[in-house]
């Protein structure tokens, strides 16, 4: 039985993001859960599934269980998924399967962290780089930007992608953020600004790296049938896809093609859609090359032509395919694992038509894609206003 259209997202909530020193990660997480449930017009007692992602600043051994206790929730489905950014959609697919199987009715998925205020800069850097292999990568001193720089460098060497083309990702993302009052960085930037920003890990510069933030977000998933009786216009989950090619970048089978190609194809097939059908896409953007490779692997241009696509089409407001209409992790916020959640809540708001100045026209079908590790784990979600 297909999951196509079986479930819908009926609640979404973002906490304050950026620098939020007066809230712990646990408090942000609780706020996001309560906010999303209220947005759906439900009470906590209506929720019987809770999926969380652990915090780096305030880790809890059994996180989801502890959050349920904190809120005095008594779910039947309760799990912590620690696989990083790509967690987001894959967890939703499993929740949707549980709802379809009847083992859960209404599930909240939440992620929150205090990467900015709860950790020192060095702690955050060291923690995030621990994604590298402990014996055969980390000793050589790769930072997280360096891992992604390896992908950018390989793409440039193989396909002739230029620094100017990559910079367009940062410039266009900032143009979206300028229209979003909740975004952490809203001043418009140019390609020259990007290229003149401080080198971090060649060929990547400061403005090509995502932010370090506090914040959290949550969504509520329920059956399509139940969704029709709830407060918000349902946003239907039409296609799910998941793909995994490696964990450590030195073990990747291909540096310039990712398992986004696998997860995207699966999600499109389930939904019965093709890339040209989307009004917008929210793509994981921890660094500029992440978006470059995703645009190719998700079928918006041919392999190797991502640079030329960015140069000719762009991805800012008014582009053929606006990408990261909230400002992404490059300009809106990136509290670590929760980073992708804000692309998901934005997709829900776009499909509801709630985005005001930055509302995309004819937003009937949207794409959300997240990845985790170093282009390792990928998950794609096709969302629509109609079933």
């Amino acid at each position, binding site marked *: 039985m297909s999951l196509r259209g079986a479930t819908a997202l009926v609640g979404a909530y973002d906490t304050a993001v950026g620098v939020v020193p007066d809230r712990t990660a646990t408090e942000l997480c609780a706020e996001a859960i309560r906010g999303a449930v209220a947005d759906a017009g439900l009470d906590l007692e209506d929720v019987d599934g809770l999926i969380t992602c652990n915090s780096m600043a305030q880790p809890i051994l059994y996180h989801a269980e502890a959050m349920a206790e904190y809120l005095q929730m008594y779910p039947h489905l309760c799990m912590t998924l620690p696989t990083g950014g790509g967690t987001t959609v894959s967890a939703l697919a499993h929740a949707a399967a549980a709802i379809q199987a009847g083992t859960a009715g209404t599930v909240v998925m939440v992620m929150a962290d205090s990467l900015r205020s709860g950790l020192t800069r060095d702690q955050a850097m*060291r923690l995030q780089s621990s994604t590298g*292999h*402990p014996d055969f990568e*980390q*000793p050589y001193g790769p930072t997280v930007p360096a891992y992604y720089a390896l992908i950018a*460098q390989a793409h440039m060497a193989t396909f002739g992608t230029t620094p100017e083309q990559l910079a367009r990702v940062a410039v266009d993302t900032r143009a979206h953020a300028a229209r979003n009052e909740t975004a952490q960085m809203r001043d418009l930037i140019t390609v020259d600004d990007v290229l003149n920003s401080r080198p*971090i890990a*060649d060929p990547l510069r400061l403005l090509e790296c995502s932010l370090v933030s506090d914040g959290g977000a949550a969504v509520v998933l329920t059956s399509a049938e139940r969704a029709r009786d709830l407060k918000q216009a349902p946003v239907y989950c039409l296609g799910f896809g998941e793909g995994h090619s490696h964990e450590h970048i030195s073990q990747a089978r291909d540096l310039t093609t990712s398992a986004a190609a696998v997860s995207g194809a699966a999600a499109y097939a389930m939904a019965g859609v093709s890339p040209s059908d989307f009004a917008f896409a929210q793509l994981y953007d921890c660094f500029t090359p992440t978006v470059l490779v995703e645009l190719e692997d998700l079928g918006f241009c041919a392999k190797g032509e991502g640079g030329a696509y960015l140069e000719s089409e762009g991805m800012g407001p008014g582009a053929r395919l606006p990408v990261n209409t909230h400002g992404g992790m490059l300009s809106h916020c990136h509290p670590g694992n929760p980073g992708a959640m804000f692309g998901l809540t934005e997709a829900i708001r776009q499909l509801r038509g709630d985005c005001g100045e930055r509302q995309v026209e004819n937003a009937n079908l949207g794409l959300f894609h997240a990845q985790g590790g170093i282009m390792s784990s990928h998950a794609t979600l096709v969302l629509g206003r109609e079933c």
Partner: protein
Amino acid sequence: MEKVLPQRVDGVSAPFFEGASDGVLKIQHCADCGHWQFYPRPFCTACGADDPAWEVTRGRGTVASFSIVRRGLTKAYEAPYAVALIDLAEGPRLMSNIIDCDPENITVGAAVEVAFASWSEAITLPVFRLSTEGGTL
């Protein structure tokens, strides 16, 4: 402040680290199917044979990709330094550093050869230098 040390240097990985201390780059080479394998595992990922044999490599390879890190991981890592993915002549890819060169001279595809550097009193790791012969430089 010390550099990050590999967490497990005994067990299945012992020949790799012992080899580095002796000045050779050893990786697994399955006697059953001929598959060269890195990182070490107690089985061959190609044919499933147990306990693949170890063999000394030629220590030569090419740069699959690299990054010049401008902001070091910790104070123990003095930036700029080169983190690279090296494709060994035998096949497997590994992460390493490229040392003793102007970072501007590193290119994707450049020929490199192994060298060894001390990480602590007990730990030596393979690193690479740009080749002076038979390479692209």
